[in-house]
């Protein structure tokens, strides 16, 4: 039953952690989707598909950019602030953005 509920929710709940960090210095890393409202972080990797990556890049979300979470719809998209730009990103994509605080 709980499995069904989790599936219903999309299976990418905030409880999910990323797999073991590849490099030693990335201990503090996490996925963008795990951040809470108000938290700030720096992007250091995006392992989404090319299309999503290009779109994020053209909106200013690239490795090295700093962002802040403005709103978080838990099972839906996130609202991010990057400089003057405000960005909605679907959770599936946010889970593929690696950040450190």
């Amino acid at each position, binding site marked *: 039953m709980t499995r*069904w509920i989790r*599936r*219903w929710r*999309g299976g990418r709940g905030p409880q999910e952690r990323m797999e073991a960090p590849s490099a030693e210095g990335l201990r503090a890393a996490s996925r963008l989707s795990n951040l809470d*409202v108000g938290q700030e972080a720096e992007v250091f990797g995006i392992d*989404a*598909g*090319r*299309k*999503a990556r*290009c*779109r*994020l*890049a*053209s*909106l*200013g979300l*690239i*490795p*090295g*950019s700093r962002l*802040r979470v*403005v*709103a*978080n*719809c*838990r*099972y*839906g*998209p996130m*609202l991010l*602030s990057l*400089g*003057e*730009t*405000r*960005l*909605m*990103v*679907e*959770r*599936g*994509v946010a889970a593929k953005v690696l950040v450190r605080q």
Partner: protein
Amino acid sequence: MLMALAGQPNAGKSTVFNMLTGARQHVANYPGVTVEKKVGHFKLNGHSVELVDLPGTYSLTSYSMEERVARDVLLNGSPAVVINVADASNLKRHLHLTFQLMEMGVPLVIALNMMDVAEERNQRIDHELLARKLGVAVAPLVGRKNTGKTGLLAAMIQAAGESLNAPLRLDYGPLEQSIFVLEKALGDIPDLNLPHRWLALKLLEADENVKDKISEFGDPGKEILALAQELSASFQKATEETADRWIEKRRYETAEAIAKECVHAPDEGGPTFSDKVDRIICHRILGYPILFGVLYLMYYLSIELGYELTNYTWPALAWVRETAASALPAEGFVSDPMLRSLILWLVDSINALLNYIPIFLILFVYIAFLEDLGYMPRMAFLLDAFFRRYGLHGQSTLPLVLGGVYVGGCAVPGVMACRAVPDERARLATILVVPMMNCLAKVPLYILLIGVYFAAYKGQAMFFIATITILMALTTAKLLNLSVLRDKETAPFIMEMPPYHSPTVSGVLRRGVERVWIYVKKITTVVAAVSVILFVLMQFPGLSSEQKANMDARAQKAQTAFMRAAQKTPLGEAVNSPEKIDQLFDFESRYKSARMGVTDQSKADGIDADFQEENANFFAILKPGKDKQAKTVSRAFKKLRRARLTLRLEAKNEIINRSILGGLGKWLEPVTQYAGFTWRVNVALLSALAAKENTVATLGALYQPVDSGDEDSPKQDSALESRMARQEAGFTPLHALALMLFMALYPPCMAATMVVKVQAGSWKWMLFSLVYMTALGSVVAFLIFSGGSLLGLTGLEAMAWFYAAAVAAVIVTGLIRPKHAET
């Protein structure tokens, strides 16, 4: 001379377009409003200029349709000047596109828009320094207030003349070597009239479109592709960075450096006003009641208040009809002159839709307000997760709401609003399900049927029909996604959230009125044309000569009886011929409409006096008062009136019965009986193809009152509800339920169908939407009626079971996860 407007979404390109050409392109505070290029004309320094408004693009890759459209115009249209509209308050990001335009080698002018917003945020922008840095003319602008237009025009004239541009050349550092090598190789290909540096960069980015283009050049092309691949591989090995990411990064670094020098801003980064508002508006819990409130207010204002207003506007429409009726040849005894019937039919059909104007005006003004404020993208944000589960998209919300998610919308604006959905698969799914929503025109039929067959459960039945459509739409959208739409392009939901803008009263009102006007123009022409066709289909070939002779004889008999009765009184002289009798009927109907709605006694007396003066004898027959002899004639007249009415209705009924549409209805009956539809219902449904409003009107004409003669309402002695119940004795709630569900799933009306064609972009999808909805509606109606009869279910039980099945279908289809194309 061709010029183009390019820029990132929501930068104000369409605003500038409207400013230059005086056009009225759609402008709204959300990104992605313009999705196709739009062309306008204006005069610049004596030359006539063709100006193209391009869709907004963040970048110029070939991944999305808008980017391909924009790129195609820029490269192949060879515009004399490209006006790059950039948002001054977000310069850094907008420069990103500017660099790409510069690399494409197009003659550029920068329109630095939204200077007012930048000022509001205390950003001081040194646009002269920016122009020097970029090597391109920069014209500061406030598009919305028309300030800065002269500066922009001057810059455009200069750029169109000899090009003094020496645009900045971005330095790509360690990648420059590879770019240089590729540029040289490209130089060996003849007839390659595209900027080599741009091509080299695109090849290093592995842009599919450019790769295809180069491979067209045969072997040398293939060699270059191989070279590009090799170069980017070695670059990656040396720097641990892919070439495309590096290019992206360099552009950002350069943009940042330039923005730092040209924009003097107080330290940014803290939450802005919009952010603080969005903490609440986009809150994961609070956001939803607010959303509900906004939508509820929309219904309340447009549907409830709008209906209220139609009470005040209807008299104007009724007046038009009256005027037309009195100008046309008068009614005959049994049948009317063709011209009269046709024109009145036309006026009635158009009036039925014009009656909705107050509703649409409020709706469009409200939407324009939300659009300018910037609430639309917030709505998408809140609902995206839920809708995505069913293959729709956050931005499907607005189309569904306009189509009538609850009750009372219209598929035409609903389908039109679909263009804002960026994901092609979700956009098509939305276009295909919006017509399922309960549009305003379906509601009268629901009310009629529920009133007759679910009288004891009105509330439940209304709730059922109001909510069943969205349940079916979600399931259908998902199933379409898994089948016909499976191979359509999807796009991840990544969207810019524009800051709130305060809407201006004049802007919002003007847009509301404009859209109503477009509606009026489009709908009246379509409806006018269709209603004439429908008229012909329902009137021809008309009565047979035998029937005609029979009816004429009966008419004559009734007239003679009346004349004989009148002959015995002094009033006999006034009505001693059939022509005079027709005049009397005309007199009566004019008198009735003059008195209609008049409650003021002295006014009524005035009207009475006028009519008495016009024809004292006729007036005496209508209002005999205490005069004994007049009373006798009046009584005879009442009898005559009843006989005339019966004849007229019989004739109308016979005409429909013999008409092409009636024949079609009967021809379909052997099949439709399994869904519980009789031929009369078929005729009503066929007439609904033109406009759904026709259903109830046609049923009203088909279920004629059989006896009449009541003093006060001689035309409609009994409500359609009771007539239908009486004349379709075999009809059960199960029949009614099948009919209601068929109506809900019925193909979109003519106007909506045309809009589906326009928005989906092909006849194929238009036909598909007609066919699948008819098929779905038939299957559901068949299941309900035949299945229900077989199981011996009552209408209410069938309703409950169907609802349960629909809820189950929504849950089950929600669990199916389609294999996403890799994002």
